[in-house]
């Protein structure tokens, strides 16, 4: 250490300046070669110590009060970069008066003159007895306290007092981390990352060290993190940061697109073209940042074990501990990849993580598995679908799956966009992370953050198969591995994945539709005149059904929201909702006038593909008068089945077909129209205790009626009785023929059920005479109850109305019925509507 010379401070200053310049030059040279990592930062910190110590030595006679000068923060832990702040703590063993202020000035002024950025704290020792709890950052900086100059006994005193507060700082530190991560949307996969602050950055690696120092007892064997990987990551991040400082000439930590090429070159990243070198740089960055993030998560888990989780055995192969789902038999788990997927399903169902040990096992062995290993049986395929169902924790579990390499093994198509960087004006994250964030956006709808979000949330609750939305999102951008029309390419790549899952044709078509058209709704909402009837009509035609509309709407919302935190504004949500409502109304209210016979293209496909037992004439005759919607709702197989059911149908006859799909039954029924028909059919289902979930009814001008109901057999009648299906069909035939009165059958049953299912909210009854040229459209939204549909449609018949078309849906506990009606072959006038509404209200209230 240089002492103060006789010629005053000038020599000290010149000597310090020369020393600093040499240190900086040495550091900058290493940085330009991409080698200024941990060792360089440590050496630079050591040289900075010399500079500070020489200046302190020159200033020490300004005060007689004992003092100590310490390094804190990054400087304290010897992680000083070229233009980092030099954080100093000066503590006096007594009151700070004029002499002490002169001392502080004599230390700081020369350092400022050296153009150093200082972060200085000046304190009296008494302040350490009762530190300011509102300034946790200062207290946390003391974890890296390091002696530089002054009274060593005072240093010990400061260190001891700081250490006394350590156990109380765990939660404030974790809160600071969580707030900082939230600024980055809680993801490390930033296209332009902040090397210091972003999740997985340098600050996180320091936090890991702090947390371990705060509670060493928490890190017993088995819960430890891989500190070598964290050290390796820190070295890499420091090398990148040092280049940013050299290039920027200041404390720059943002690895922007503009700087990535230069940094990649200086780091010696592999690749003959700049973009290849950038890909290599960012690939390594994400790998390193992930190692830090994983270590931090693991550290947090060790510090915050779930208190309510005792060891639990789940089946033969799993147990749940405080760390999450573990394999009960590691050897078996190594051999059986289907158990890996099951571990994630169990974690989702029990709302816990997959343990680090299980993740490490999967990561170690994933490379030897092919995609087919995970879909070998029907059970495997079903399990994958269950995993994709939106629910709390889905994003975290999929991220874990992705991090340990399992997701890419199950869906190798997704691996094509692993850490893929696509530069554009809008996207902030890599393609794979954008995809996972979109899935997180869907998950977040389960607990909507605002009233405006609740409307989208309700759509999610209504979805028939919400896992298809996750599946479509998973594939929607895989085509971005190349620079071209990515939606088409995504559909192409998704084929193999959909083949493996063996989805039914209609579900596969829906997923393909969503992937192919995932940009269409945002185009209409944000870039087109959505109020133009032609544009709105074309969009409604494109989506075809309410289910696809809801899926596409949610996909658009999730996709736009995952571009960057600022992209999905309430303004855009409003635009999206307006397009949704308009298309929904067109699909449900306005479809009655659009008949099939005008659409030759759809007919020619049907005619060309018909089985040999169906003639063209029979087919055309069956379809005559059906709305065009019929073809968007039913696949070819269903249409041909309907044609067969309609064969030789006579008045009072019913041709019905009942089949079971998992927990849902479907009744298809063809008959000829007559008063009270729909009411009687729905009444029969209620009589057998069936809960009608969805349904539609269509009537042709010739009086042919096609009804399709989906219902849940809540009381198990169909499941428990061998002859149940024929019994249902027999009662249907008798009721339609008029030999059995369903209303009296239902009387006793309805009365007891109605007492248990009182309407909690008044029903919404709305008439629309605008959307359809021919029909009055009656919409009823009411609390679901047994026999509801039967009662409503019986009122229609009693009031002399003809029911032509019906769409039945349920959303949780609410029934949503859309009925196209006429009276004496015309629309209903105001008085008729009022009378009908009154009567419907009355029967819904009292149950008739």
């Amino acid at each position, binding site marked *: 250490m240089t002492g103060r010379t006789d010629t005053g401070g000038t020599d000290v200053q010149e000597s310090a300046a020369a020393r600093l310049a040499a240190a900086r030059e040495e550091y900058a040279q290493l940085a330009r070669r991409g080698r200024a990592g941990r060792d360089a930062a440590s050496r630079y910190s050591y040289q900075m110590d010399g500079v500070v110590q020489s200046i302190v030595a020159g200033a020490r006679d300004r005060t007689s009060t004992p003092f100590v000068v310490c390094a804190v923060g990054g400087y304290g832990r010897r992680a000083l970069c070229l233009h980092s702040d030099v954080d100093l703590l000066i503590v006096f063993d007594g009151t700070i008066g004029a002499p002490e202020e002169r001392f502080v000035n004599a230390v700081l002024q020369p350092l400022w003159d050296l153009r150093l950025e200082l972060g200085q704290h000046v304190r009296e020792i008494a302040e350490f007895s009762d530190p300011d709890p509102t300034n946790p950052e200062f207290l946390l900086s003391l974890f890296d306290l390091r002696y530089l100059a002054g009274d060593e006994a005072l240093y010990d005193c400061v260190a001891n007092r700081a250490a006394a507060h350590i156990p109380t700082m765990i939660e404030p530190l974790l809160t600071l981390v969580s707030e900082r991560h939230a600024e980055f949307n809680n993801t490390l996969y930033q296209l332009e990352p902040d090397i210091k602050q972003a999740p997985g950055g340098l600050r996180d690696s320091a936090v890991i060290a702090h947390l371990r120092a705060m509670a060493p007892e928490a890190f017993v064997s088995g819960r430890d993190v891989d500190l070598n990987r964290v050290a390796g990551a820190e070295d890499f991040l420091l090398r990148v940061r040092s280049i940013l400082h050299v290039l920027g000439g200041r404390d720059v930590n943002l690895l922007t697109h503009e700087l990535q090429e230069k940094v990649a070159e200086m780091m010696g990243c592999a690749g003959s073209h700049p973009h290849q070198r950038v890909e290599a740089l960012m690939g390594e960055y994400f790998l390193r940042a992930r190692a830090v993030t994983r270590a931090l998560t693991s550290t947090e888990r060790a510090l915050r074990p779930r208190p309510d989780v005792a060891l639990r055995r789940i089946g033969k192969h799993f147990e749940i501990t405080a760390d999450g789902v573990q394999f009960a038999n590691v050897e078996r788990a190594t051999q059986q990849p289907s158990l890996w997927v099951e571990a994630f399903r169990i974690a989702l169902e029990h709302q816990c993580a997959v343990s680090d040990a299980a993740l490490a096992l999967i990561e170690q062995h994933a490379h030897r598995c092919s995609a087919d290993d995970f879909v070998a049986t029907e059970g495997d395929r079903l399990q994958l679908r269950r995993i994709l169902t939106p629910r709390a924790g889905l994003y975290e579990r999929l991220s874990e799956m992705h991090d340990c390499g399992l997701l890419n093994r199950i869906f190798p198509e997704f691996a094509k966009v692993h850490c893929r960087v696509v530069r554009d004006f809008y996207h902030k994250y890599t393609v794979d992370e954008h995809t996972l964030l979109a899935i997180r956006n869907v998950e977040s709808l389960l607990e909507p953050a605002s009233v405006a979000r609740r409307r989208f949330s309700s759509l999610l609750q209504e979805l028939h198969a919400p896992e298809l939305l996750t599946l479509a999102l998973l594939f929607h951008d895989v085509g971005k591995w190349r620079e071209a029309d990515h939606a088409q390419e995504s559909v192409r790549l998704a084929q193999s994945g959909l083949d493996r899952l063996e989805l039914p044709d209609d579900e596969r078509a829906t997923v393909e539709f969503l992937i192919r058209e995932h940009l269409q709704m945002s185009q209409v909402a944000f*870039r087109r005149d959505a109020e133009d009837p032609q544009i709105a009509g074309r969009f409604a035609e494109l989506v075809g059904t309410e289910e696809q509309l809801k899926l596409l709407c949610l996909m658009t919302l999730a996709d736009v929201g995952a571009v960057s935190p600022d992209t999905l504004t309430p303004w855009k949500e409003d635009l999206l909702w307006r397009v949704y409502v308009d298309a929904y109304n067109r699909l449900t209210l306005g479809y009655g006038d659009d008949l099939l016979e005008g659409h030759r293209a759809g007919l020619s496909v049907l005619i060309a593909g018909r089985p040999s037992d169906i003639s063209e004439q029979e087919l055309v005759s069956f379809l005559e008068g059906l709305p065009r919607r019929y073809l968007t709702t039913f696949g070819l197989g269903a249409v041909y089945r309907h044609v067969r059911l309609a064969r030789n149908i006579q008045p009072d006859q019913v041709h019905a077909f009942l089949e079971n799909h998992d927990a849902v039954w479907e009744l298809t029924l063809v008959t000829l129209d007559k008063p009270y028909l729909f009411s009687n059919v729905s009444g029969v289902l209620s009589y057998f205790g069936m809960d009608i979930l969805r349904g539609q009814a269509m009537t042709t001008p010739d009086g042919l009626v096609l009804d399709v109901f989906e219902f849940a057999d809540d009381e198990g009648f169909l499941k428990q009785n061998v002859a149940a299906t024929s019994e249902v069909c027999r009662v249907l035939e008798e009721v339609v023929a008029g030999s059995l009165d369903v209303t009296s059958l239902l009387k006793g049953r309805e009365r007891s059920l109605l007492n248990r299912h009182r309407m909690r909210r008044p029903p919404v009854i709305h008439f629309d005479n605008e959307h359809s040229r021919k029909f009055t459209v009656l919409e009823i*939204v009411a609390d679901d109850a047994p026999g509801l549909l039967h009662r409503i449609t019986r009122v229609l018949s009693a009031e002399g109305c003809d029911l032509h078309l019906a769409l039945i849906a349920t959303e949780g506990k609410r029934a949503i019925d859309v009925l196209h009606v006429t009276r004496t072959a015309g629309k209903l006038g105001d008085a008729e509507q009022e009378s009908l509404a009154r009567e419907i209200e009355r029967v819904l209230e009292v149950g008739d």
Partner: protein
Amino acid sequence: MKLIKSIVRPHKVDDVREALEKLSIAGMTVTDVRGHGRQKGHTAVYRGKEYSVSLLPKVEIEVVVPDTVVEDVIEAIMAAARTGEIGDGRVFVLPVEQSYNIRTGARETN
């Protein structure tokens, strides 16, 4: 100098931007806004329930231009943003006293 502030339909933004670029007006500020003029919103129905959409989504485009091109700019904006229906929006023209370039500190004149 004048500040020309126009409120247009969201899907007309690109058309207006292109029209301004043809006049070599490069700088502009585009903001998503909500509001209503004489259009006063409308009533929408979803699942039988009526709700009023009183504040409609619009886009505000602001440009500062020399006095000499003000008329051309107004004409270009109106031509690009017009559909002929109620709700096409408004154009406001405000005087600008001074303008400074923050980077260079230079004061810009008309």
